[in-house]
């Protein structure tokens, strides 16, 4: 029977209250939201907080809100809510692509976007999604609120810019015209961690050439986005030979480790093939959005 070691439990009643509790209980306290990463780690004694601060009552952090040219998503938004949001799917189809394959439907009822990002598992999907969408993390702490770009949010496996006395409150996604995005993951079975995955976001210029492209990889040993792959497309019309070249560069840039999910050459092959697929789909979706804008 797997049971966590003893701890004390307290339920936060507001963001301010959560920050007070974090300050009061210090480094031995941890915030719990969905709990589907933290509780398993506590059962295995990989995490052993003395205080658990439950933020599930902070409904003010459970929202999806369009605000000018940004989409604001509260950190306590459940995976299921993100998956089912038509607004999110229309603006950022990559989110639905990824959410479909995050854990399983029952786990998605509990897990949150903020929890996934703060857990920062190297095989976690939403980190890549937020990377390629150029999202901003809004973090609150005793000193007030700050916004951190995704490139500065990740500090390494299980490490983020969120300080011990801080709370991730919101993600902000820039809405761009003529934009498309896609995500694809290879997993051995439903709910497994990714063997490998890739995400891409593309914006087209008015003349149909690629204005900007971003490619990210999950579980393939690359924290940053694949700048080399994106550079291949910029200023050019989307074409199959460019996707092929971008895939080759993504495979060369990544640094996967061999494990029971596959050897290095197989994982590099995934980086290559999945990069091509997500770029192909992201470009097609961007072209669709551009066409809709012209009609509208």
């Amino acid at each position, binding site marked *: 029977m797997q049971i966590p070691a003893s701890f004390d439990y307290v339920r936060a009643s507001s963001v301010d209250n959560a920050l007070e509790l974090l300050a009061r209980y210090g480094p031995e306290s941890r915030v719990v939201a969905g709990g589907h990463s933290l509780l398993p780690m506590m059962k295995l004694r990989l995490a052993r907080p003395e205080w658990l601060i*439950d933020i599930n009552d902070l409904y003010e952090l459970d929202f999806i809100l369009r605000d000018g040219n940004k989409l604001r998503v509260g950190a306590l938004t459940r995976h299921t809510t993100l998956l089912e949001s038509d607004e999110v799917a229309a603006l950022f189809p990559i989110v639905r692509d990824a959410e479909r394959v995050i854990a399983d439907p*029952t*786990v998605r009822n509990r897990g949150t976007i903020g929890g996934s990002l703060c857990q920062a598992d190297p095989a976690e999907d939403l980190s890549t999604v937020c990377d390629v969408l150029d999202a901003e993390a809004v973090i609150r702490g005793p000193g007030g609120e700050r916004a951190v770009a995704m490139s500065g949010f990740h500090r390494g496996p299980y490490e983020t810019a969120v300080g011990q006395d801080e709370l991730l409150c919101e993600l902000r996604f820039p809405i761009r015209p003529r934009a498309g995005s896609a995500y694809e993951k290879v997993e051995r079975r439903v709910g497994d961690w990714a063997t490998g995955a890739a995400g891409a976001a593309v914006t087209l210029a008015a003349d149909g050439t690629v204005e900007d492209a971003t490619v990210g990889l999950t579980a393939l040993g690359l924290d940053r986005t694949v700048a080399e792959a994106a550079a291949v497309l910029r200023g050019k019309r989307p074409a199959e030979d460019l996707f092929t070249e971008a895939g080759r560069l993504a495979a060369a840039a990544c640094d996967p480790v061999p494990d029971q999910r596959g050897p290095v050459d197989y994982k590099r092959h995934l980086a290559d093939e999945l990069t091509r697929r997500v770029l192909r789909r992201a470009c097609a979706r961007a072209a669709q959005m551009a066409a809709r804008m012209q009609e509208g």
Partner: protein
Amino acid sequence: MQISMTVNGSEFTSEIEPRVLLVHYIREVLGLTGTHWGCDTSNCGTCVVLMDGQPVKSCTVLAAMAAGHDIRTVEGLATGGTLDPVQQGFMEEHGLQCGFCTPGMMLTARALLDKNPHPDDAEIRQAISGQICRCTGYATIVRSVQWAAAHPAGTGWDGADTAVPDVAPETADTDAEVKA
């Protein structure tokens, strides 16, 4: 710490350790052993209960986190001595063999049908994709849920008010009855 929650419509208040998982609270403190306890790692789904109407894996929810919420377990599916259509469907279509995954499967099916009364087979398979059955290979589970979708409560599917119909399905032979 003291917690209170509603389980199958009744309010329970208990003194527990914060580390007690919801599955053990339900089984050991409340004595409702219909909720099964399986893998401990939120993979198998046999411990699924409904929390505010949504399926959750109760091995990965603290009882303390469920305090103040509305929990429904398999014991809460039948109402007034009448089986839920999902339960009846699992009987009619042989949705179980050993029965270990069944409580979780039925609760997920109930939540699915509440949201989507006419799911197609793919939607049913998607809904139960976080749950493992090692006996039937899922085909009969999908058929059981489809049976329930075709016979919603209150449509007089059998007209009877018995908790367990005492008449075997017409197609069943004696051997099948014994095995079941």
